[in-house]
């Protein structure tokens, strides 16, 4: 019930990833400027888009949590943000590799997207410390949701600010991403984007399932412990004191 559709999703994302990778290596043309290195673009940019999408989705899910008061939405928001942080590490690493290969530096400050991404990433890194430093689970969920909404609103604002700061010193053409890609590259890019997005959704559902199952196991364990204690209390009456030895905790569970 929790994991329904997980198998189909996994197979779909595996197939999409395989298709994307084979397109990247065998179909997409080599970049005239950068050669083979440019192919990391098909990994880096989809990862970045999916990460930012995940952050914003975390904010939207958090709004639903605060609207409905249903904590399962908070769990969804938490998992989306958590996964986005993991994807964000991959974005920063692939971005640094690409920057080193094509510009000669691991980090360049005059690339607005890179800088904005780092700021957003650092902000979201505080999500978990904030969340787990609050003890009361209900309040923890509410505070985490407030953070997710404020940070989600901050993402576009921050991109505008950093973009303005760059345009101030380096006038640049704004429409460089996607707009002027040749056909084969665009197709490969779109397939890679879909594959990474599918991977994100699959992992999201997987973690959600695992968390739900773990919570249910915990619930059942508690129930079990309760039942076994109730069984022990009831025993002298039903068994008329025939068995006085401490009961095997596993036995009363089979009710």
């Amino acid at each position: 019930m929790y994991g329904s559709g997980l198998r189909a999703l996994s197979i779909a994302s595996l197939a999409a990833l395989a298709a994307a990778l084979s397109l990247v290596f065998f179909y997409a043309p080599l970049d005239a400027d950068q050669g083979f290195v440019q192919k990391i673009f098909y990994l880096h940019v989809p990862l970045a888009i999916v990460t930012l999408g995940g952050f914003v989705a975390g904010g939207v899910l958090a709004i639903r949590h605060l609207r409905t008061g249903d904590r399962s939405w908070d769990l969804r928001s938490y998992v989306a943000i958590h996964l986005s942080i993991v994807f964000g590490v991959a974005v920063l690493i692939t971005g640094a590799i690409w920057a080193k290969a094509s510009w000669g530096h691991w980090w360049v400050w005059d690339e607005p997207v890179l800088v904005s991404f780092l700021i957003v990433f650092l902000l979201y890194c505080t999500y978990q410390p904030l969340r787990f430093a609050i003890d009361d689970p209900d309040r923890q969920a509410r505070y985490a949701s407030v953070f997710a909404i404020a940070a989600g609103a901050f993402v576009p604002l921050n991109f505008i600010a950093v973009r303005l700061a760059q345009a101030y010193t380096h006038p640049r053409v704004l429409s460089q991403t996607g707009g002027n890609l040749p056909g084969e590259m665009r197709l490969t890019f779109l397939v890679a984007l879909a594959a990474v997005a599918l991977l994100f959704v699959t992992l999201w559902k997987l973690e959600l399932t695992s968390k739900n199952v773990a919570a249910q196991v915990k619930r059942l364990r508690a129930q079990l412990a309760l039942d076994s204690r109730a069984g022990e209390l009831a025993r002298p009456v039903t068994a008329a004191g025939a068995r006085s030895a401490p009961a095997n905790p596993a036995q009363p569970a089979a009710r």
Partner: protein
Amino acid sequence: MIRHALTILRKDLTIERRTRESVPAMALFSLTVFILFHFGLDRDSLDGATAAGVLWVTLLLAAVLAVNRLFAAEREQGGIDALLLAPVGPAALFAAKAAALLLYLILLEIVAIPAFALLLLGPSLTSALPELLAVLALADLGLALVGALVGALGAESRVREVVVPLLFLPLAVPVIIAGAAASEPLLAIDGGGGELGRWLALLGLYAIVFGLVSVAVFEFLVED
């Protein structure tokens, strides 16, 4: 609502006047940071981009102190329960806290800006002062709104002193971008120029966005 906000604001200002927990600490802290920059950069006088950077970084770091203390009375002495019992809406509480922080920031700048001009700034400040004050006023508004939200977010946390700067400083990046870029030509030796309007617009947008977001979500930080 405005009456409630004013009442809470008056309470906060009375506490501040009697305990002097925030503003003197912020002012002292800013002077210390100027000294740190003097030795760290090994420069006797600054101008242009360096001056703007030092000034804004110092102001932001000093603001963190006030954000940390903003909900101290509510948290440590259970004042939040009393506020929740009183017929005061969350919007009034938020407005009062943001206004208190705004006042603290203005008081900080009344000390820190002349001290900065005296200790570190090379070019004279007098000609650029009106523009600088406009930039500071809008930036303070944005910082006060974000600071009130972050202060409330961190208030319930066990590691508040860690979480507050880690949340507040990245959120303040647009403010430092706009503030530093706008004041860079104002603090330059030849002075003037720059695109003040664009940065004021960015600061205004920042204040509006975070004002709206904060008002929308603040009630969830103080309920129960």
